[in-house]
């Protein structure tokens, strides 16, 4: 299929439909509203379900119901809306249902602002709902990658029976880039555990996260933990960029990684080598990328569109080996490549 130029939010919708999306339940919020708008038009036209819910809370619970009934489902929102969805997300994780949640981040806290932000790293990776659970979290840096990740996300959600999140930001949602959609996968079978009616052929299926007996609940938690361990083993993804002979290693994801790449190119022209580790999965965090640094590396610079969230994970896996510096903008302000270059100079010239 040929490339098309598409807005990020609309591309999410198209990619999800190509992945066999049966139903979408959502609620409008800037900067992701083009996604429900696109799907409100395209889903019914393709014989699929689109419902604009009365709230984010209702939308995520519709997702719970439809996922429990065996459908391939997705919802989307942005920062404060994702906050509202946390209740449903922990129920979905606890009940082991597959679904995809797109989070097109804006800036916070509270109502915050509508310009791009990465201040929902904790929300996505450390959970906002109650209990021991995790989401598999992908962080795309461009629209093509986002579409590829969405196709993958549905399969991973099915494999692990766990919600999967695509964490983008307002910039990726709003911008247009060329994208080529992958071919349709083969028809997905309705899972055997789904509530589709017994048809008198089996015992009732029950979708539930309630375990009143502590022994049973602990056993359930251990079972979930095994899945999360398997994710850590198999699902870590990251990109290494210009790492060889790098004096400083930048750590950045999503939109910010693109800005950092501009900064790296600028310094390369001057003969200064700076590298980038770009986490593509935020949970599991790509721990393996931190096993060994290039011998030339003297420091780490974490760049985020927040006041510093991912840096806690970087520090944890750096284990004190290199000094870790931070540069961030927040509130919808976007770091410029020039500012990142200036930070890197400070570190390299020892002025920091």
């Amino acid at each position, binding site marked *: 299929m040929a490339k098309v130029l598409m807005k990020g939010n609309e591309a999410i919708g198209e990619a999800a439909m190509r992945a066999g999306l*049966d*139903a979408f*339940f959502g609620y409008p919020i800037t900067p992701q509203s083009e996604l429900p708008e696109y799907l409100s038009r395209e889903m019914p036209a393709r014989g699929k*379900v689109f*419902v604009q*819910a*009365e*709230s984010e*809370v*209702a*939308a995520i*619970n*519709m*997702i*719970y*119901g*439809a*996922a*429990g*009934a*065996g*459908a391939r*489902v997705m919802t989307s929102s942005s920062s404060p809306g994702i906050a509202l969805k946390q*209740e*449903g997300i922990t*129920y979905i994780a606890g*009940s082991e249902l597959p679904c995809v949640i797109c989070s097109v981040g804006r800036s916070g806290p509270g109502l915050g602002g509508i310009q791009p932000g990465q201040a929902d790293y904790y929300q996505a990776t450390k959970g906002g709902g109650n209990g021991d659970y995790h989401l598999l979290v992908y962080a795309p840096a461009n629209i093509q990658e986002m579409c590829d990740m969405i196709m993958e996300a549905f399969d991973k959600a099915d494999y692990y029976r766990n919600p999967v999140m695509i964490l983008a930001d307002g910039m990726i949602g709003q911008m247009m880039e060329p994208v080529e959609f992958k071919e349709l996968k083969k028809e997905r079978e309705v899972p055997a555990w789904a*509530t*589709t*009616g*017994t*048809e*008198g052929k089996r015992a*009732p*299926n*029950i*979708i*539930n*996260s*309630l375990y009143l007996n502590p022994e049973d609940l602990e056993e359930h938690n251990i079972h979930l933990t095994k899945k999360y361990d398997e994710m850590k083993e198999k699902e870590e993804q990251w990109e290494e960029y210009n790492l060889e002979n790098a004096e400083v290693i930048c750590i950045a994801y999503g939109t910010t990684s693109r800005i950092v790449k501009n900064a790296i190119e600028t310094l390369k022209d001057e003969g200064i080598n700076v590298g980038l580790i770009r986490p593509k999965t935020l949970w599991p965090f790509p721990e393996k990328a931190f096993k060994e640094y290039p011998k030339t590396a003297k420091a780490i610079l974490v760049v985020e569109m927040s006041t510093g969230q991912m840096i806690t994970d970087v520090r944890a896996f750096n284990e004190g080996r290199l000094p870790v510096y931070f540069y961030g903008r927040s509130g919808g302000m976007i770091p410029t490549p020039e500012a990142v270059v200036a930070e890197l100079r400070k570190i390299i010239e020892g002025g920091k």
Partner: protein
Amino acid sequence: MAIVYERSKGLTNAETHYCPGCTHGIAHKLVAESLVELGVLDKAVGVAPVGCSVLAYNYFNCDMQEAAHGRAPAVATGIKRVRPDNIVFSYQGDGDLASIGTAEIVHAAHRSENITVIFINNAIYGMTGGQMAPTTLLGQKTTTSQNGRQLEGQGAPIRIAELLSQVPGAKSVERVSLHNTQNIRKAKQAILKAFKNQIDGKGFSIVECLSTCPTNWGKSPVDAMKWLEENMIPYYPLGVFRTPEEEI
């Protein structure tokens, strides 16, 4: 020997946890019998609430989903939209439906989701230990209205059937009571009709069932039945509030 009565096939053999004199058991039986009589038990998917009937998924002999508190109508919406051929019902108490879940129930009704809602109104929170519900009567003592519910600051009890009867999408709205045989028979007819509506694709149907909570009311089962009749029915009049035939 001919069998004249047996446990409904719509119920599992599990022993329920409900208190003696609680009418949840009656409501369960009526729902189960209706599903069997309409021949849709095998296609039924129920949604259990949070509250006393939280374990309903163990009692109904059909596929079940356990919803978060108040969200059963949203969960049922999700199920019905992707499985329109299944018969989907939610079973909710008054804390669940009339307090934390008002947005979900009103909007499911507004969209006229083709589902059946069984609403148990016993004027109190049962599971959490007898706290004031939005349906608690004025003057009624509960653990969070120890001097009796006051109009000022706590408001008047919410009449869900009347409220939903104002929603165009609520195609069938009826209030029944489970306090005596005569009314239980009427309740059965109302529940049967509410499921029949769904089978016929008529849209959103709700049956509000006035129920007892002897434990948290601090009454014997018999006195509880009497209290319901004398106190709840005057405030919550029984009857049909909407039928699918009527347009508003």
